[in-house]
């Protein structure tokens, strides 16, 4: 049976106690996205400032459990300064790590990228601190906590895609 230390790794508790990129951004130029976990009432507010296909800045507000908040904090550190394509690759890699119930990682992805590679066959990006969230997979109920910030990011990336014209 998985122990608490599998779930609550020290790095996770650190991001929970000292969240990175906490706050708000002025909208515009930034955009604001909200994510809710209807199960427990957790909420994430993501401020995303995208310029020239790049995440120039982002901030996180909202409240939730240690898993949702630390995942948001790690996501903000990992995505800040990345291009939209790099952010999307991270999003895919993170969801792959949470894979079990994330059927959205559709058949196409599986056929092309069965060996830890993304949909386009690219190398999976280095996950850094995010690896610590791997243990969440052993606690299926908490996967939604870990993916909340990332699903909110997905909304933001879709939004940025819309405003970026045809691509």
């Amino acid at each position, binding site marked *: 049976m998985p122990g*608490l230390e599998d779930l609550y790794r020290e790095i996770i508790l650190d991001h929970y106690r000292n969240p990175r990129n906490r706050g708000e951004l002025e909208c515009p130029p930034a955009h604001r996205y909200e994510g809710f976990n209807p199960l*427990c*009432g957790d*909420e994430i507010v993501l401020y995303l400032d995208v310029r020239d296909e790049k995440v120039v800045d982002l901030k996180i507000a909202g409240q*939730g459990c240690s*898993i949702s908040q630390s995942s948001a904090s790690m996501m903000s550190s990992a995505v800040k300064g990345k291009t939209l394509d790099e952010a999307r690759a991270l999003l895919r890699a993170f969801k792959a790590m949470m894979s079990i119930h994330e059927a959205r990682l559709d058949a196409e992805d599986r056929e092309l990228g069965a060996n830890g590679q993304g949909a386009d066959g690219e190398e999976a990006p280095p996950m850094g601190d995010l690896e610590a969230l791997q243990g969440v997979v052993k606690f299926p109920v*908490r996967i939604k906590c870990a993916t909340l910030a990332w699903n909110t990011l997905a909304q933001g990336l879709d939004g940025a895609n819309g405003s970026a014209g045809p691509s």
Partner: protein
Amino acid sequence: MAAVDHDRAAQVGAQPLDVKAIRSDFPILDVEVNGRRLVYLDSASSSQKPRQVLDAMTRYYETTHANVHRGVYAIAEEATRQFEEARAKLARLVNARSAREIVFTKNVTEAINLVAHSWGRRNLTAGDAVLLTEMEHHANLVPWLMLAEERGIELRYIRLTADGQLDLSDLDRLVDGVKLVGVTCMSNVLGTINPVAELAEAAHSAGALFLADAAQYVPHLATDIQQLGCDFLGFTGHKMLGPTGIGCLWAREDLLEEMPPFLGGGEMISDVRLDGFLPADVPWKFEAGTPPIAEAIGLGAAVDYLTGLGMDAVRRHEVELTSYALCKLAADHPDLVIYGPADPASRGGVISLALGDIHAHDLSQVLDTAGVCVRAGHHCAKPLMRHLGVTATARASFYVYNDESDVDALSEALAEARKFFG
């Protein structure tokens, strides 16, 4: 007030429950979780089932399963007899005037949707008002919000006092001109027992009907719908030792007679032509399709079990256990916040709590490793959570199979959680 009467009865009349004997009736309590004994403190969400209930359902399937109200053969007649006997047991439990006042539903949610859909659409039009409270479960909010969206009816709310009671100081103004008052008998988050009889009287004085959400009440207190003065009352089987998928709407027979059917289909008709249909008599006109027969029979067995213990004894046990828990938890954990009324006699065995700034989800995760099951979340009462200024709480709730050792286990596990997150 009804709750006060019940408490007096519990103090003077009832024998203490033999919890050890009761526990031996619940097979699941022998299960180990994470190598620890199961400490089940989530009965407000769903109770466990005694062997007597499980056996009644199995016996039915093994000896007399057939569809009800149809076959003219022995086992079908026996199935129908047992199904209707379960209805009569529910009627006796709440002191209904007749079993015809008991409509089987899936749960309280469906019972209230039935009222909103059938009575509401027949009787409410734009501008009509319904009075609810800020502490309602979503089951008694969303059906009315849907009707408000569809019909333009007005929804009013009784707000809460600082200690989690209904603020009745403005009741006269709020109730003036409303068509229906809908109130939970007992908050599933705070444990607050509401003055149902007083509210029903206020509703009737204003010319309104009174609907009671008794999901947390009927399983725990002797319930007399005539004394409470309700017009509609919903309760559910799985919170009172019965199976899931079966609950009931009790309603005054004359109201049921006037209400149009809810779902259409088999079982709920007396005649069908290609250009129309004639509904069946009450209560069957509200029970379209093959009902959950084994579940109804199981619920009947649960009623027998509770009646055998005595509802006054059940209430007395829970008041005593809640008193113990409130004292023990406050003494062991000075930083623990407990929501709801402080007096055990005015509340049920439901304790919502917060420990420091540890999120409820993290708290319940740590408790789980000690085998302690509590509910974490918004408890399907988001407006109430906003009133409390929290997104989630952890909630421990008690029933007939819990005793002081379960409270002690909870307290120890809370100390573990503080150590982990402190």
